[in-house]
């Protein structure tokens, strides 16, 4: 017996992008629900610490400058029309969040205050201490409760459903608590399920960031774009790879090498510690590789900021560093290193979240939308600026929600046979009933993560990436045989980790595929065998489509330039 539900719009994921999308669809007057594998406030948007960018024109800032710095930060791979939309709509969105109740930091006049962030000359980052993501996430959840948007809490989506014409018709998922499958019919589906950080080991990302949405869309026929663009954050804690906010440097912290030298002066003399993330991460890795590091790390020094500022503006990381590394920020520098942090690539969408192809028609699955880290517009191109990800989630979450609502009004209710659930259920049962073969999901995942971090990290080359490709192929074979020890129906996290690993392997393969194709160095994709950016050949996006049998079909899409011609990028 399976249950089925019906909505106009279904959102997969309840982080900032998902909740913002659901609220926008709700305001537009359609029936919307959210399905999420964790409670909304457990989402990884929580982890965004430093803030959210917006050029508020009423206080003398200039949205074009924000847009240009975003384009420059992206190493000119961002689509400039999308970036313009982002920068123009930022201010309005900050005010909406403030009116909803976000307790943004204030200046002396009681108006919204800002701090500086990397890759930008002006202080245009609005913030709540150093837990801006959490403060926004909880407020959006408040609004969701107020609007009584139904949430399928702790439900795991296994696949997208299409009707006979190939149109998006909803999702199939199961309730984690009971193991019961259900078909949720929807005219439009918005995937907002976040990133894929756990494909790498270590990563700043939460354990839930397993690329589910990207893999589900890819399998259903949508394009994944620029998957090779993986951001390494310059400041992650040595111990477990936890994130130390860029706000620390925004507030004035230094990066030091073994000799106590502020080495960024040799790499980015103007912007120093606040150059864009790819530049700083490469500088750090170079220092470490050339023997000027400290036990595989460099040092982040906050001592001169003083206890009061640290207490007021960096409280969370001060606690974090204290509990996880036993270090008092006020007294000692922190050992940090670059660590995998964010996926710039993702499900290819237009500025309204539609999974459109390069000709402006639905690619693969009509009715499929995406927003947030799962999606790729491309806004962030080869490298995302700090504090642009929160902005991305709310601006494009809202746009996707509104557009999906409009779309859902125009299309009829899709027809899907209930038997589709049975087939999906059987596939999962087959996985559950496999015998233990002494291999384990955890081992395969770990080997994948280490291979990705070793060969697709800050520096890449043909040889290493080919090795990674081979490793992934072998792991894929092992994955097809691995058993799940827990055979129960109730809260079977063993099963969930096995399903997630399947999604992660898909994502890993597309990252390697894109990285091998792109024979240049741009943004976060830095190849020691192709040291320079090559605008003649590579001012274009790489789109990958799933093909039965594993390999991807490749398409290229020129970058949309509006007002900024690519220039040499220096900080």
């Amino acid at each position, binding site marked *: 017996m399976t249950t089925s539900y019906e909505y106009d719009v279904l959102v997969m994921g309840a982080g900032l992008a998902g909740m913002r999308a659901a609220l926008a669809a709700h305001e537009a007057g359609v029936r919307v629900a959210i399905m999420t594998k*964790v*409670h909304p*406030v*457990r*989402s*990884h948007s*929580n*982890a965004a610490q430093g803030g959210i960018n917006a050029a508020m024109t*009423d206080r003398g800032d200039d949205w074009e400058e924000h847009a240009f710095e975003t384009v420059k930060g992206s190493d000119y791979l961002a689509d400039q029309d999308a970036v313009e939309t982002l920068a123009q709509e930022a201010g309005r969105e900050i*005010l909406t969040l*403030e*009116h*909803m*109740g976000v*307790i*943004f*930091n*204030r*200046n*002396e*006049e*009681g*108006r919204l205050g800002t701090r500086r962030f990397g890759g930008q000359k002006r202080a245009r980052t609005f913030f*709540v*201490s150093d*837990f801006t993501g*959490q*403060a926004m996430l*909880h*407020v959006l959840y*408040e*609004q969701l*409760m*107020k609007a009584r948007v139904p949430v399928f809490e702790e439900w795991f989506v296994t696949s997208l459903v299409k009707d006979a014409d190939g149109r998006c018709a909803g999702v199939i998922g199961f309730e984690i*608590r009971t193991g019961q499958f259900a078909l949720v019919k929807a005219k439009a589906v918005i995937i907002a399920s976040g990133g894929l950080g756990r494909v790498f080991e270590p990563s700043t990302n*939460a*354990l*839930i960031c397993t690329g589910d949405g990207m893999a589900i869309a890819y399998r259903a026929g949508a394009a994944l774009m620029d998957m090779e663009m993986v951001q390494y954050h310059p400041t992650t804690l040595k*111990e*477990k790879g*936890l994130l130390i906010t860029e706000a620390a440097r925004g507030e004035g912290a230094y990066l030091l090498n073994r000799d106590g030298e502020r080495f960024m002066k040799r790499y980015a003399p103007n912007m120093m510690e606040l150059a864009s993330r790819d530049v700083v991460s490469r500088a750090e890795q170079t220092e470490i590789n050339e023997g000027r590091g400290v036990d595989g790390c460099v040092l982040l020094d906050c001592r001169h900021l003083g206890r009061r500022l640290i207490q*007021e503006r960096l*409280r*969370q990381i001060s*606690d*974090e560093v204290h*509990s*996880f590394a036993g270090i008092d920020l006020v007294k000692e520098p922190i050992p940090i290193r670059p660590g995998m942090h964010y996926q710039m690539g993702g499900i290819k969408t237009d500025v309204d979240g539609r999974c459109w192809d390069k000709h402006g028609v639905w690619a693969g699955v009509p009715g499929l939308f995406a927003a947030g880290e799962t999606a790729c517009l491309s806004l962030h191109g080869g490298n995302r600026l700090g504090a642009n990800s929160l902005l991305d989630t709310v601006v494009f979450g809202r746009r996707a929600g509104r557009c999906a609502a409009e779309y859902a009004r125009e299309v009829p209710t899709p027809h899907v046979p209930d038997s589709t659930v049975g087939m999906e259920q059987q596939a999962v049962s087959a996985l559950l009933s496999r015998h233990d073969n002494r291999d*384990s999901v*955890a081992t395969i995942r770990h080997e994948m993560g280490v291979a990705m971090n070793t060969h697709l990290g800050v520096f890449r080359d043909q040889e290493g990436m080919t090795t990674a490709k081979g490793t992934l192929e072998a792991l894929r074979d092992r994955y097809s045989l691995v058993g*799940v*020890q*827990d055979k*129960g*129906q*109730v*809260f*079977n*996290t*063993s099963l969930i980790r096995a399903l997630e690993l399947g999604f992660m392997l898909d994502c890993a393969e597309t990252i390697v595929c894109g990285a091998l194709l792109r024979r240049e160095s741009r943004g976060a994709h830095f190849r020691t065998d192709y040291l320079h950016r090559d605008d003649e050949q590579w001012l274009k996006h790489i789109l990958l489509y799933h093909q039965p049998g594993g390999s991807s079909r490749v398409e290229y899409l020129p970058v949309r330039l509006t007002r900024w011609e690519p220039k040499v990028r220096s900080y």
Partner: protein
Amino acid sequence: MITTFRIRRFNPETSPSRPYFQEYKLDTDRADTVLDALIHIRETLDESLTLRCSCRGAICGSCSMRINGHAALACKTKVQVMASERGVVQVEPMNNMPVIKDLVTDMAGFWNKVRQVQPWLQPAGQEPEGEYLASSESMNHLTGVMGCIMCGACVSDCAALEVDERFVGPAALAKAYRFVADPRDGAGRSRLLALNEPGGMWDCTRCMECIEVCPKSVGAMDRIMSLRSRGIQVDVPSTCGARHAEVFADLIYRKGRLDEPMLAARTFGLRNFSRLLSLLPMVLRAFVRGKVPKSGPFHRAIPGVEKMRRLFQRMEERL
């Protein structure tokens, strides 16, 4: 160092389904958290061990559980600190909520209570064109309570909830305070009126457990006390809770020590005959054992009570 973990297991699908303790031994080092250990157990020893966890950095609030008897985030608790307390590390699911499986609890009740306080901003008047003006201090003050990650630790260990399911609990009350103290919120009075009802802000017994176990220093009990004093300030209709506080202070002011029978009588109201009568059996039992304290005219002020009164005056000047 070899550490023994004693973990409470429960699987509703086995029969009979009863909770039991299972022990695992692991080699741990100084940096390991309880979450690291639990993940290690499920990855190498027993895949079926079930828990919620996500961020590993004390920000998502998933991995709340009782460790050596007190609620804590597994990701923020060091194994060896716990092991040094009693040799083993005992891990159990949170209290005051039903267990689904192993360390996973059902938090639906928790969220229902949060919803009960209408946890969204209810501004008064027209929305401004720009942002609401608010002082930097007021917003900074709110970061303390907005730091709450809704992990449930305070609710797990709340002594009042253990005996009174209707109590809305520390997490929901801290959330309510976040709005009452927000200068942009216009519904403060109606919020306080609602919290004045049974099950609301007066049902906290001030055991301090919520302050003790909170991984984010939200200080729920302090917020509850702030709600109470704001309630008294805006003259929410007098309830036993508010009167208890007022009479307490008045008796101390007058006599320098507590007149307990009078405290009870005036809290319930001297004309509240039925309630006072209901106390009679207890009073009689206490009388038989010679434990009824002196009261009224027989209860003298302490010597030097003037000094006490000066303390009160000084406090009032400060307020």
